[in-house]
């Protein structure tokens, strides 16, 4: 992929679990064209970051000529990787769009279980944030509404839709507490 070198580019977007296993990943840079290379990268990212505390503020690290900004929520780890010449704050901006949109889509239940149950939403969010490594959108609300195709079906009023979703969420919560 050859784009103008001044355009900010994200090399990959990773969503891993607390053991470093992949939940959803998207690679854009040619350096990780094989699954093995990707696995190696995820392994080293995980080993370099898992012991740090990125729960409050997003953290950052640099190795092997890349910059990785990351944030941990619950048992999930969100990573955004860029080249070492990239503006760190732009990557941080993308990371914010990443975890906040997913948090919105999952209604705050940001944990591995719900992400797996709603993997389609997570994958769509990643697709709405970046297009072939180029930043498409970083505003979490915009991303979330695009993922939900809100406005596409004019027959469901916005207020009602949120209500039905709230109801679904409540049911889910109840079911979970009964299962325990």
């Amino acid at each position: 992929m050859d784009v103008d070198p001044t355009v900010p580019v994200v090399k990959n977007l990773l969503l891993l679990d607390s053991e470093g296993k992949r939940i959803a990943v998207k690679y854009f840079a040619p350096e990780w064209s094989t699954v093995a290379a990707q696995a190696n990268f995820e392994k080293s990212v995980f080993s370099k970051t898992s012991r740090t505390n990125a729960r409050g503020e997003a953290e950052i690290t640099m190795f092997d000529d890349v910059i990785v900004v990351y944030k941990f929520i619950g048992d999930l780890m969100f990573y955004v990787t860029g080249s070492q010449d990239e503006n760190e704050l732009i990557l941080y901006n993308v990371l914010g769009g990443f975890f906040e949109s997913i948090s919105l889509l999952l209604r705050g239940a940001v944990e591995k279980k719900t992400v797996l149950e709603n993997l389609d939403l997570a994958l769509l969010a990643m697709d709405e944030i970046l297009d072939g490594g180029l930043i498409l959108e970083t505003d979490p609300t915009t991303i979330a509404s695009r993922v939900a195709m809100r406005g596409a079906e004019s027959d469901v009023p916005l207020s009602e839709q949120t209500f039905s979703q709230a109801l679904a969420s409540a049911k889910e919560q109840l079911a979970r507490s009964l299962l325990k």
Partner: protein
Amino acid sequence: MAATAQDPSAPLRGPEKKDEDRDEDTEYSPFYGIEKGAVLQEARIFNDAHIDPRKCQQVITKLLYLLCQGETFSQKEATEVFFSVTKLFQNKDANLRRMVYLVVKDVCPASDEVIMITSSLMKDMNSKTDLYRSNAIRVLCSITDAQLLGQIERYLKQAVVDKSPVVASAVLVSALHLLSHNSEIVKRWTNEIQEAVQSKQPMVQFHAVALLHALRANDRLAVSKLVTSLTKGPVRSPLAQCLLVRYVAQVISESQAASGNDSRPFYDWLESCLRHKAEMVIFEAARAICNMAEVSARELTPAVTVLQLFLSSSKPVLRFAAVRTLNKVAMTHPMAVTNCNIDMENLISDQNRSIATLAITTLLKTGNESSVERLLKQIGNFMSDIADEFKIVVVEAIRSLCLKFPQKYRALMNFLSNVLREDGGFEYKKAIVDSILILIREIPDAKEPGLGHLCEFIEDCEFTYLSTQILHLLGVEGPKTKDPAKYIRFIYNRIILENATVRAAAVSSLARFGALVQELHPRILILLRRALHDNDDEVRDRATLYLQQLEGQAGGLDAVDVKWNIPAKNLEQGLKKYMENGFQKPFDLASVPVAVAASPAKERKAPGRTLAAPAPTQAPKKQDDHAALLKTLPQLAGLGPVFKSSAPAQLTEEETEYNIVVVKHVFASHVVFQFNCTNTVAEQVLENVSVAMDLAEAEDFEEEAVLPLASMAYGSVGQTYVVLARPEGSMALGKFVNILKFKVKEIDPSTGETEEEGYEDEYQLEDVEVTPADYIKPVAVANFRSVWEELDPESEMADDYGLGLRDSLQDAVEAVIGILGMQACEGSDAVPPNARSHTALLAGVIVGDVQVLVRLSFGIDVSRQVAMKMVVRSDGRDVSEAIHQIIQDA
């Protein structure tokens, strides 16, 4: 999982399947036990007459999950999935449609199959729903070829100016991707893109700006125009603003290459970005300013100030970004960063080790001697919990610090030996050992403790390469120490315990002790005899050879320790030549030239150079030019080599008829004045040009020769020389009044021919002075302290001087260095801001190759009176006296 590392095609999926005997409370996953075959089977429901959108969405998610876990579909499987997915375009469910868009991009079919869905996508592209339009555009652009693009171009062009941001962004981003292979099509949309640049939607503006620049990236003028127009108006999107900062930085760097030292275009605009409300933009601008070529301290200040604010941010990303940029600035402008030192020190204990490491190395670059121990203590606390690559960075920073402050070698060396004992990989250990080796070479006092540390290290070293390197060094340096015997045990232990390569190196090392230290000779013989029974050929061979040599055979003791003064490069060349000429005669070492360009000296200076401010590299080159010019004159051939050439000095006012510049060349017993003459009047030619120098105020000189310039035509530069003799090796001084003498011939402006007749004329030039500085060559010494101590203390002379009122200490330091014409060592020419006192270390060589070192201590009081104490050491007391004389006369 383990299998995936070797097999690139193996999926990463689930240990869930493998360890089924895991605890019952193992986390529930909807994908538990998922299998490709089963999912492909499930995908058949896409073909059902009655589609269940929710169910289909789930199946698509499963397919994507498999892909995401590294599963691959065969060509046949992919085609099958793709065909059935296309059926889903029949369904009206929006969420299902969104998933179809996603999966189509991932299961990328062959181009002849794309036709299957293009009509569906083109229908969506004209849909009333924004999200259908945008997604259809993204999918179409990512899977189509040029031919199909031609068909849909009309719609795409329209979409660029679509009211909906999601549609406009989709097509703009897709166009950025298309540029690499279908730029022609995108170029036709320029008008629409320009309209999109003005969009009120931030992301649309960002994408449009990026695309517009990408279209014009190869046209410097167009980029410059784009920048000019964009910097005038407000830019809504912070991302677009960041792009603009990058373009401006590009324009600045290019304009600098073209024009000279005008005030930078757009600098003010960059500076205004430092006050932008988005941190992203502030940082981008600060970074751009810091990266400008030849950035001045004044330009840097505002950028460093905002970065300093970032240093105390609560966000690690901000702190990291700031400290990384400041770290880079510290390499070229350490003074600019010193204001941040306090904030930087707080970062040493930062939770984020990358930030801490960068802070440490920045401090090491900007720190002064007194803070070394404190810094080391702080580093020691965190060294164990950072990654190897950071440790290497720290070690390298410590090494350069040690070369900067040789007096602190003890603390720094101890630090290095402590970290050497800790765990670490090869690269890290190598960095430490290399650092110790360099310190041993550069700082004589550090040699014995350094060797001691290395001896301990090889006792427990797992890296053969490092062990052999250290053993070799012990063999070279050990015998010269006060107590060589103490190293024998360490070396001999290697012969007992190590692998063959290290054993062989240890044998060689021992043999050198035997050859060089008389008392150890008998003991070494015993030890070497034990190695004769080694089970490795190389070790046995070496032991046998060295035993013979130590017993006086096979070349004797000298053969053990060959004085190898032939540069390896010359030897290589000699051997190559020998091989080309066949092998009739034995190779004669004496035929290899020993002399070589002064590269070893250069090499030795190299580590020190990174510390000092970038030295003006152009000056010596110019000097070489003059020297080369001198060599072409046979009359000057007898004078020997040039000792020093001065910087060119102007002897005429600017824009007069004649432009004369003088360069003074000092030889062992002569001074040659080279006058570069330029005639600036087109209507005349000067002939027989020479300079008459009045020696009335320079009694020690005697005129030996004058080399006139035959003709000086308009616009060209010619040289005339005056050669003055002086007592050999002396520092004769004097002041000369100069008169330019020549014969003027007019040129007839109508014909351009020179007239026959001319007249003699003279022209008064400015005075030339020969100062002591002309006899002093600035030659840096790598380690000031050790050279200082090698010089005879008897030659030392000290005196105090008052320098009067000065603007700053820096000013005073520069003035004195200028008068003496010596080289400041160890970066001591830079005075920290607000310092009340400063010590500068100068080195130089006086004509006759006499080494001179000067230690200057400056102090400034409240009324800005500067006092200086100067201590001089040299090869003789008279020379030291002469240096003091220079200052007294100044």
